[in-house]
């Protein structure tokens, strides 16, 4: 089950906790992986750890031209992009009343617009191949909202609507488009929270603990697999029961 031998996967945000784990998991299932991210060092380190079947493809997702070029670079490096995992994301949290246009625009640009551009960039080869898997990593806050994250929640909710629309368009081409909505996962992003904040969050999670990146990667592996070919336009919530959607 879930054998990805011969498939080529491009993972953005592979320098982060969740993205790195997704790349490792797809690689372990046999895929060749293209690791993208802004910071080259962690990408190189992960590539060294994985050894073969791996390519480092740095990209600043805030740079529209670089984003347009990324799918082409990935095809050059790997021969195709069969699986696209849009995992990269940033936060610029602020209370709504204090949020600047820039904080809003940056989060929308990186978390939503760059994802749109990357999806568009891989469609042509996927349509020709009559096979493709697009996995957009959203967030629980896209469904529930979160104080201080008006921009982030908007982008992540937007991702879901975008995924569904695209899923409609390409479903009969063998391409699936799905989202994964992680709850609170222990990564550098959530390390920023103080103990009191963490404690408050834990009281809201029926599972009684934060999730780990491996649990998100497992969901990505499933959605990337041939076995999930009849699953499209859905959002897989991986959140320990924090929001039962």
């Amino acid at each position: 089950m879930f054998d990805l031998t011969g498939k080529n996967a491009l993972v953005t945000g592979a320098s982060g906790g969740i993205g790195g784990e997704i790349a490792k998991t797809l690689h372990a299932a046999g895929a060749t992986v293209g690791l993208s991210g802004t910071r080259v060092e962690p990408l190189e380190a992960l590539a060294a750890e994985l050894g073969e079947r791996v390519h480092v493809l740095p990209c600043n997702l805030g740079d529209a031209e670089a984003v347009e070029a990324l799918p082409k670079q990935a095809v050059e490096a790997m021969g195709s992009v069969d699986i696209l995992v849009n995992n990269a994301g940033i936060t610029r949290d602020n209370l709504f009343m204090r949020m600047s246009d820039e904080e809003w625009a940056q989060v929308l640009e990186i978390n939503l617009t760059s994802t749109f551009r990357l999806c568009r960039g891989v469609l042509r080869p996927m349509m020709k191949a009559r096979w493709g898997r697009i996995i957009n990593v959203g967030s629980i806050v896209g469904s529930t909202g979160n104080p201080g994250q008006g921009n982030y929640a908007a982008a992540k909710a937007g991702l879901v609507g975008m995924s569904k629309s695209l899923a409609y368009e390409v479903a009969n081409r063998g391409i699936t488009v799905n989202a994964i909505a992680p709850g609170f996962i222990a990564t550098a992003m959530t390390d920023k929270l103080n103990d009191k904040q963490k404690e408050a969050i834990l009281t809201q999670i029926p599972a009684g603990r934060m999730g780990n990146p491996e649990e998100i990667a497992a969901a990505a592996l499933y959605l990337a697999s041939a076995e999930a070919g009849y699953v499209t336009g859905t959002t897989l919530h991986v959140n320990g029961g924090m929001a039962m959607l």
Partner: protein
Amino acid sequence: MSDVAERVKKIVVEHLGVDEDKVVEGASFIDDLGADSLDTVELVMAFEEEFGIEIPDDAAEKIQSFGDAVNFISANQ
């Protein structure tokens, strides 16, 4: 029939799975040959590849029939 027309016809027949004799000058991809809007995008992609040309989006939108495709490609090869 010109060489361009023959090659375009072959692509249309293969892609849409229609009979060759249905692919006539005025045949609309969508109304007469059963294509959906994504099929027309894919046809344009296939033409680009076959003829080594680039068809800009505004031109692609105007390629609605077999005749449109042959005329555009003949003029832009």
